[in-house]
């Protein structure tokens, strides 16, 4: 009950923080239109470029939203606000739930706007495939939301912006959000396939029939979740016992 009322205020804060919202929403949209518009008739990686790039930019926007949640926790730790909250009846799980929900809310807004832009550039999918695509994006972002919480406790102050920015950029570049860095073979491709961002972008193959994600995709997402969630819990515990 206290958690529910707390979430309301977190959401309120999310929408008040227009600078952040503008960046996390506008950045993928601008890139999508700037690159997608002139290339809207091309194909890429076996599908229409707008569909591929729509997924790519939805992933970038979604990652910015959920990982930046971590930056928010780091800021609240730095200013001492977290300590103030810890001496209220608010339970830590409710605090983290509120952060993750806000991260997801931001992600959903970005994904929706990028998908609408995709439609504007000619992407056409059956309703069922839209549902699958968005559903997979949201599932695949889960371990990254946990990563964001972990970063919020591991990194402090000035280091946060470059760490979050660098993490999102690396995951996006290696995951293929902007297209591929190298041919789809070799060591680097192996690394790419071990990243959740790669499979997130691959959710764009939603219309190619059969299962969208192979077993490997689910293993990678689950594996990241199995590492990131306990990591987030562990760094939170370490952080709060030391203070």
């Amino acid at each position: 009950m206290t958690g529910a009322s707390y979430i309301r205020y977190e959401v309120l804060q999310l929408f008040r923080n227009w600078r952040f919202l503008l960046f996390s929403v506008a950045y993928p949209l601008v890139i999508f239109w700037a690159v997608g518009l002139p290339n809207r008739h091309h194909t890429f990686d076996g599908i229409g470029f707008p569909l591929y790039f729509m997924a790519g930019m939805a992933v970038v926007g979604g990652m910015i939203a959920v990982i930046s949640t971590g930056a928010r926790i780091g800021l609240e730790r730095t200013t001492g606000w977290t300590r103030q909250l810890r001496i209220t009846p608010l339970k830590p799980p409710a605090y983290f739930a509120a952060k993750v929900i806000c991260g997801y809310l931001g992600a959903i807004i970005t994904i929706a706007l990028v998908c609408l832009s995709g439609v504007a550039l000619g992407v056409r999918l059956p309703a069922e495939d839209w549902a699958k695509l968005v559903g997979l994006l949201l599932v695949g972002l889960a371990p990254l939301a946990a990563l964001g919480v972990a970063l919020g406790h591991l990194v402090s102050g000035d280091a946060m912006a470059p760490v979050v920015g660098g993490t999102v950029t690396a995951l996006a570049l290696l995951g293929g959000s902007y297209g591929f860095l190298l041919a789809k073979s070799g060591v680097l491709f192996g690394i790419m396939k071990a990243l959740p961002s790669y499979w997130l972008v691959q959710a764009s193959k939603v219309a190619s029939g059969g299962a969208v994600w192979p077993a490997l995709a689910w293993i990678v997402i689950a594996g990241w979740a199995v590492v990131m969630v306990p990591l987030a819990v562990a760094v939170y515990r370490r952080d709060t016992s030391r203070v």
Partner: protein
Amino acid sequence: MIGGTTGNSGCHGIVAGMTANNEGRGGIRLTHLTKSYGPVAAVRDVSLSIAPGETVALLGPNGAGKSTTIEMVLGLARPNSGSVSLFGLPPAQAIAAGAVGGMLQTGSLNLHLTVAELISMTASLYPHPLDVAEVLRATGTSEFADRRCSKLSGGQTQRVRFAISMVGNPDLLLLDEPTVALDVEGRRVFWDAIRAIAAQGKTVVFATHYLEEADAYADRIVLMSRGEIVADGPATEIKAKVGGRTIRATLPGADLARLAALPGVTAADRHGDAVILSATEPEAALRALLNEFPAARDVEVRGAQLEEAFLALTAEETDRDDAATGGAASKGQSR
């Protein structure tokens, strides 16, 4: 009157504890608390019992261990040894029950909420909060209630922080240096509110290095120095411990040894042409002074200020060093 929604439903522990047995479920009990940060002992074997309804000042200079003690009471720092009990519960449980409010020494409130929203949000976390509008008024925050928390001045932030600590209607209010950054008017508003809270039977503990504040607003003063409790009692008792009165007179070139030997005088000191006598029996001392030193003029007698009590006690502590540990601990009303 602050406690709009308090009375009947709100305060669990407090009322029962006050009417029945203060020692039973107890208010706050710190038992042999010790905390070190690396080689630095921040708090050394602090034992303290505070009855429900008491207003207690933790008085001491910077680095005395006041903040660390408060952090341990709030469960924000884990003691190396010893334990804390709040109304018979460990801190985490008392906090989860909404029995505790705290005002910490922290930086800005860098939140995208207005003052009113932040206070409402905090209220919503507690089972029996006070009326937010009442709290805004009582803390003098209503005039900037619609301003973003990130845009407040230091004094305004401090008022908001106070509002946050009290809006949950907690049985125990812990305040770490609450009046830092407050102007005169801010302090007046703050202490008025604290008095109202204390009048409802709430327990209030505040850390301060303002001696006048401890003297004026606390029922009881716990004096801390270098991580230990060096004195604990009513302000009057602490003053009595160091000789009671001070006699000041202009008396150029007087012999300090002769002055110190006067009846009722415990110590004599010189400030330029003035002499300052510490006296346990000021009447006898005054009579003797005027008889033996007819040249004395501008004679002034006053109660020893807490400042002097404080200096005397902490100096004593420094001198006795380890020998003082036992005395301080026994004074700490443990058990």
